C-alpha cells in the first residue's frame, strides 16, 4: 500500500543535474586544492562545506573510502579525494575540509586539502575536455583559466581542472 503512495508522491528532484553542461555563459565553480593542483566542482552540486568531524572507518570498503559521518542524522560516505584521484597521500591538515557533493541520488563527502574560492567562469575561460584533447579521464569536464588578478602570483594556480562528480564518484560503488 504505502508503496503506491510513495510512487505517487516521489517527485524526481535532481537539482543541478547536467546544469554544468548546459549552463549558458557563466560557470560557477567551487575551486579547491589537492596537492599542488586546483580542481573545481560545479558550485550547484556542492551542498555544504564541513570542518573535519570524527570519521568512522568502514572495514571492507574500497580504499579511497575514508568512512562515514552523520550529517544531521543522515549517514554520509566520505571519500579521500587524494586517493580517488591517485594523488600522493597525506594526512589532512588544518585547512582540510569535506565538501558535500550531490551525486544524484546521494550526497557524498569529499575530503580536500583546502577550499579556495568560487569562480564565475565565462565561456571563453573554459576549455572543454574534447578541445583539450589527449585522453583525459571521463570525470574531467575541462579546464578553466580564470582571468583573476589575485592568482597571478602563482602561475600553477591559474588552471582549474573541472570535475564531473557523477563519473568520479561512480567509482566508489564499483569498488
Amino acid at each position: 500500500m504505502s508503496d503506491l503512495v510513495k510512487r505517487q508522491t516521489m517527485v524526481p528532484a535532481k537539482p543541478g543535474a547536467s546544469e554544468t553542461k548546459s549552463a549558458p555563459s557563466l560557470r560557477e565553480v567551487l575551486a579547491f586544492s589537492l596537492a599542488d593542483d586546483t580542481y573545481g566542482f560545479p558550485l550547484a552540486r556542492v551542498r555544504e562545506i564541513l570542518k573535519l568531524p570524527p570519521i568512522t572507518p568502514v572495514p571492507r570498503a574500497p580504499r579511497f573510502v575514508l568512512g562515514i559521518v552523520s550529517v544531521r542524522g543522515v549517514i554520509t560516505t566520505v571519500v579521500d579525494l587524494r586517493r580517488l584521484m591517485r594523488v600522493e597521500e597525506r594526512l589532512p591538515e588544518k585547512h582540510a575540509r569535506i565538501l558535500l557533493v550531490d551525486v544524484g541520488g546521494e550526497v557524498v563527502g569529499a575530503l580536500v586539502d583546502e577550499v579556495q574560492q568560487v569562480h564565475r567562469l565565462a565561456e571563453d575561460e573554459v576549455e572543454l575536455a574534447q578541445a583539450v584533447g589527449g585522453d583525459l579521464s571521463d570525470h574531467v569536464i575541462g579546464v578553466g583559466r580564470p582571468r583573476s588578478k589575485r592568482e597571478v602570483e602563482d602561475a600553477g594556480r591559474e588552471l582549474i581542472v573541472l570535475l564531473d562528480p557523477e563519473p568520479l564518484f561512480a567509482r566508489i560503488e564499483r569498488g
Partner: protein
Amino acid sequence: MSELRDEFLAEAQEIVESLSRDLLLLDQAQKDNLPSQELINEVFRAVHTLKGIAGMFGYGRLGEVAHALEDLLDDLRLGRKVLETELLDVLFEGVEVFQRLLAESPDVEVSEVDVLGFLEELTSVGASRPPVEDELSAYAIDTSVLAVLTEYEEHRLRTNVAKGVALYRLKVRFSLTTIDTQLEDLKARAKSIAEIITYLPSSSGGDGDAIDLDVLLASSATPATLEDVLGGEGATLERLSRGTSPATSVRSTEHHALVPPAPLPTPRPTSAPPAPPRAPSEPPVARREVTADQLSLRSVAHTVRVDIRKLDHLMNVVGELAIVRSAVMRLTEKLRGRPELRQLAIDLHRINRGFERHLEELQDGILDVRMVPLGQTFDRLARIVRQVAREHDKEVQLVVTGAETEIDKLIVEELSDPLMHLIRNAIDHGIELPKIRESAGKPGTGTLVLNAYQKGNHVVIEIEDDGAGINPQVLVETAIRRGLVTEDVAADMSRDEALQLIFLPGFSTRTKASDLSGRGVGMDVVKTNIGRLGGVIDVQSEVGAGTKLTITLPVTLAIISALLVRVGGREYALPITAVQEAIVFDPRRVRRVEGREVVTLRGETLTILRLDELFRTQSDARGGRRYLVVVAVGQKRMGLVVDGLEGQQDIVIKALGKSLSRVRGFSGATDLGDQRVALVLDAPGLLDEVHSSTERTLGEGRR
C-alpha cells in the same frame, strides 16, 4: 492535490482489500452451498463506495469498472443472477483490475489495463435466474408500502415469502432525539432471529418529539420469541397472514414529511459521498438512511491514517532524545564526582530516570502504531492461492493461523512479494494434481498452511504444504549439472545441506519454466529480500509428505536494542535479537575442522569468525582478554570474536549511502551521540558468509 490523492489511494486500497476478503468468504460460502446475502451486500457496498470516491479523484477508468461491477452485483443482490464459480472468477478479476488501475496514474492517456476487455467479460457473465412467481399479493401488505420498497427490499420480501418465512409488522415509537441509537439497538436485537426488510414512519402517530415506525420483518421464530426479543414499551407485534385485508393504511406521501431532517440529503447511488469503507450498516441505496451518516461520522472519528514517513520522523526524534538523555546521564556522573554537588547529582539522576521511562513509553507507543497484523498480507495471498490453484487444476485448501500476529508496516510491505512467490511455488511445484494425490493415498485436496506467531523479538512465518516434497538427490544432481557445486562437495553433503541448494543463485529444477513460478525470480531472490529485512529462511522437506519453509523476521526495523562490541578500537552495534550469549573467549579451545575455526560450546560445534581479521584491524583486547558473542538467526549459529563488550543501547538503524551498497557485513549505521557513528553488523549476512565460505573450504579441505 497529491496529498488528497494519497489519501484516496490509501482508502481505495483498503476498500479493495476488504472487498477481496469478502469475496474469499463468499467463495467459501458458495462452495459450502450457503451463499450469504449479507456478504453479497458487503461486496456491493464496497464497490459502490469505491465508485463514489474514484469519481471524485479523477480515477475515471476505475470508476467505470466499479460502476459496471456494481451493476453485476446489483443483479446478484436482487437475485437476477446466480452466484456461481465463473461469476466469482470475474469478481476476483475485478479486484486485480482495481489494483492495477490504482497502481498507475489516472492521468495516463492509455491504460496498461485492459478495461474494455474486462467490461465485456462483465456483461456476458452469469446465468439469469427466472423471476419468482408472485405470491406477495396474497399478503396483507398495503400496496402503498410495496410501492416505496426498493428493488432490493422487494427482492428480500419475495425471497422470504417464497421460502415460506412468516412476515410480521412491528410498530414501535421512538423519540426523535434518540432514534438513531434505538433503531440500531432494534436492528441488533433482531439480527439473530429475524430479517428487517424495511421500516417506514407510520402514518398513525408521532407527535413533535416522537415518531412511530412500522417495521416489516421476516422471521422463522415463534411469535412469542419475537415478542420477547423485540417487544417492549410502545411496541406491538402483528403477524401478517395470507388473505387478510390490509391492517393499516399506510400512505407513503405522509411518511416522508414525518422523517426527521436528515443531516445530509439522502444519497443517490450515482453521486454517493465517499463513505468510509466499512461504515454504513445498510446498503447505500436504501432511501431512508436517517442514521447512516451520523453513524459513519462516529466510526471514523476514532482512527486516523498516518503516512509511515511521519512515524519514521517521530522515531528519529525519539532517537535524538535518547542521545540527549545519555549526554545528561554522563554529566550527572561527572557531578557525582564532586562531593559538594552530590545531592544535585542524585536529584538529576532521579529526574533523568523519569525522563527515561517516559521516553521508553513514547518509543513503545510509536512502535505500536507501526505494527499491523499479518492478516492483511495473508488475505492477499489467499486470493493468489485460489487463482493459482484454479489455473493448475489443483485443489488447495488454505489454512491460516496467527493472522493477528503483528509486524512492522515496512516489513509487511516488503514481505508480500517473497511470500507470494513461495505460495506459488508450493502450489506449482509442491501440491500434486488431485489424481496423483489420490493414487498416493492422500486426500485429493492439498492443504497449504500459513502460520505466523511471535517468538521473542521475532516473528516466525511458516508456509507448509502436504505436497510432493523436495528430493535432495535431485537437487544435488541439478547443482552438479549446473556447476554450482563439485561432485566432491556434493558427496559429503548432508540432507539439510542439500536442501539449502535451492537458495543458490541460478538454481531451478524445472527445465520448463511455468508461467507461474518461473518468472525469473528464484529462491535466491526470496532469500536476499528476506535477508534485507534482517530475516532468514529455512527449508525442511520430506519426499512425499511435503515441504515447510520457515521465515524468521525481526518484529521491527525502526529501533532496536543492540549490543555494542569493540573491535580494533571501534564500536560496532549488533542487534540484540541475534545475540544468544557472550562469553570470555578462550583461544586454547579453538580447533580447526576442515579449514575453519570452531569451538565446542555445551556439546555443540560453533564456527567462529574473528572480526579483527575480517576487518583487517589490530585487535585492541585489554590484557589479552577477548569475548565470543554467540549469534543465531533462524537455525544458523556462529561465534564472533570481539575485543570488548561496551554495553547495550537502543539504536535507530540508518541506511548507508548507495555508494557503500556493495560492502558486505553491515546493515547500516547508527548515531551514538557526541558525533560518534557506529556501524551495525549484519548478523544474517555474516552468518551467510561464514556458512557459504565453510562449504567452499569444506570442498577444498577434502582431498
